[in-house]
């Protein structure tokens, strides 16, 4: 198991390098001359040359990449132009709220997706199956911002059942309690969960159908096991592959959650990135993307480990 883990960690390194390279490229494709934009139109040629050297822009691109990578490894992603603070620290603060929201959404997506998928697979040809199939198709197609707005209009603004946005109440009896947080989590959580929920449901459905058609199911039936136990065996066999997809989906949540945060004013990474876009605060956007990509890699690592735990066949 330890060796399995180490190998997985080893495989993550090229991925991380690739990620860093892509982010470096997105920095380099920023149109315009960074020196000119930093100095303004009044900069003298000497000042320009000095800044160019200072920023390392006179070096060849590969050298620039390595230097940049070294800085990134030390957690230096530049300073926020708008806030004049360390970009990574600023982003990290917001990212913790994103983790809260994403974890909640992940639980909703996995629980809901598995339930919907199992229903669709085991009640085929019946109304419940048609409804769950239709629901998962709808969920997969639903843009987070549309769903979020519909939720706000019908469940929050009009009815007052849920708060329309934010993460915590600042006033009121339960301000700052966990209960308050959960009340704020429901709508954004479900909005963010919908797409992965639909995908997980489809995945569960098809692997459950595969598992129920597997030869060992007939063997189990021949042993006189009742149908629910057979389904449990089949479900257990879908878990490794479902887990892989679910893990990927939780990773992709980090993308969709941006829209949800904007719609619900959730003080997370997405909201920070959104505000930085209008301010053209590129270091913050890059730090945000890097943090998300890192989280994505970490999630994949965790998923691989769980996969190894769940499926003895790949554990070597």
């Amino acid at each position, binding site marked *: 198991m330890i060796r399995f883990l180490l190998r997985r960690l080893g495989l993550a390194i090229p991925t991380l390098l690739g990620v860093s390279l892509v982010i470096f490229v997105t920095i380099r494709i920023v149109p315009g001359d960074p020196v000119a934009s930093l100095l303004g139109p009044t900069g003298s040629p000497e000042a320009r040359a000095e800044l160019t050297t200072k920023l390392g822009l006179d070096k060849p691109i590969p050298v620039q990449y390595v230097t940049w990578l070294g800085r990134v490894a030390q957690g230096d992603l530049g300073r926020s132009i708008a806030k004049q603070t360390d970009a990574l620290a600023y982003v990290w603060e917001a990212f913790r709220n994103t983790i809260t929201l994403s974890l909640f959404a992940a639980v909703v997506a996995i629980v809901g997706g598995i339930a919907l998928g199992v229903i669709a697979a085991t009640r085929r040809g019946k109304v419940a199956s048609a409804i769950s199939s239709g629901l998962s198709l709808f969920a997969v197609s639903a843009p987070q911002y549309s769903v979020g707005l519909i939720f706000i209009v019908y469940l929050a603004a009009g009815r007052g059942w849920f708060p329309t946005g934010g993460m915590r109440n600042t006033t009121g009896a339960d301000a700052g309690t966990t209960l308050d947080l959960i009340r704020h989590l429901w709508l954004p959580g479900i909005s963010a969960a919908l797409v992965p929920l639909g995908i997980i449901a489809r995945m569960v459905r098809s692997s459950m159908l595969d598992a129920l058609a*597997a*030869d*060992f199911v*007939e*063997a*189990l*039936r*021949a*042993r*006189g*096991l*009742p149908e629910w*136990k057979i389904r449990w*065996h089949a479900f*257990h*066999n879908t878990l*490794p592959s479902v887990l892989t997809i679910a893990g990927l989906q939780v990773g992709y949540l980090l993308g969709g959650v941006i829209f949800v945060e904007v719609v619900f004013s959730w003080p997370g990474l997405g909201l920070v990135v959104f505000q930085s876009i209008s301010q053209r605060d590129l270091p913050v956007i890059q730090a945000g993307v890097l943090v998300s990509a890192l989280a994505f890699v970490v999630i994949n690592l965790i998923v691989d480990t769980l996969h190894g735990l*769940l*499926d*003895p*066949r790949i554990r070597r």
Partner: protein
Amino acid sequence: MTTLATTSDADIMTDATPPAGGTSGATLRLRDLHTTFSSRGLTVHAVRGVDLDLHPGEITVLLGESGSGKSVTAKSIMRLYGANATFAGTVELDGRGDLLAAGPKEMLSVRGPEIALIPQDPSAALDPLRRIGAQIVEVLRQHKAVPSRAAAKARALELLGQVGIPDPARVYRSFPHELSGGMRQRAVIAIAVSCDPKVLIADEPTTALDVTVQAQILALFRSLIDRMGSAVLLVTHDVGVAEEVGDRIGVMYAGRIVEYGPAADVLGDPRHPYTRALLDSIPTPGVERGQLRSITGQPPVSGELPPGCAFAPRCPEAHDRCRATDPVLVDLPGRRLAACHLLTDDPDAPAGPGDPTDAGAAGPTGGPGGPDGPVDAAGPTDETPVEAPAPAGEESAA
């Protein structure tokens, strides 16, 4: 003419006794079992009236090509089919009555403690994600064969030992993929016999194994049966397997038993042309390769059965009556049965123009079924084995 033939058939049918030659002492009795699959308007009549008795301590072999309905017969006994299968006839289990009329709950208590299955591919018969021990314990607990969890583990270890696994404790903790094919099949057998079933159904139990392991498993099988006294139905396409462990043999073709009798007799002195063809198609030591012949043509697709004997289009000895009416099983001396007109036709019967046995050679229309070119070329009445340089009928030999 046809009318006459039919009447004579009907007479024979009433005379026919169940294939076991007496029903006393049978653990499981199949009577006129039919299994039909239908899917979107397409109907496949896979088993077309099988009578069979299984006796305690005896291994009855169902022998036939793939598609002959032998596996379907075996699985129909346990009703291991979905809503697209319909059954007719009776499957009577000693002390339980007709299983085809039993409710789903009752079937759950039949599968395992009363009738157990050893499936074809041991690696596909085990849940890949559960340890072997857990899978045995699950069955023991399900059927309340043991009083406690600890007793279940002890019994499981004992069972693993009984099926000749040298290191039961290790196998108990192993996942299926960690075992060799032979070990896996032993584990599967351990699960099957865990609840002391009265009837054991083995569906090609050694097909997925290599030859040396096959022999070991068959020997284990034989010794287990001798000890437990279960009635066994073993399904195989392998004449060698049938010869090695079979007490009685039923040869199946196109959903019916065409020949039945004590194993040695059926294999030593086959009466049905199909059995002969089947035996001719396997290599035997001492017989030259050149004399091997395969059965020409394909087994019929159910739903496209010829009007008469299902084997007639491939039968080198078929004559007009074979193509007109379906033969039924008739008693032969030595508690044997076979379904073939050649065995019942007496030369006086007005079955066709002239002597029925010569009908094949009588004229071009009397030749065997058109689709089977090679037989045509070899000559339908040519009883001698085809020699090596023979022009046709040879290409398809192994």
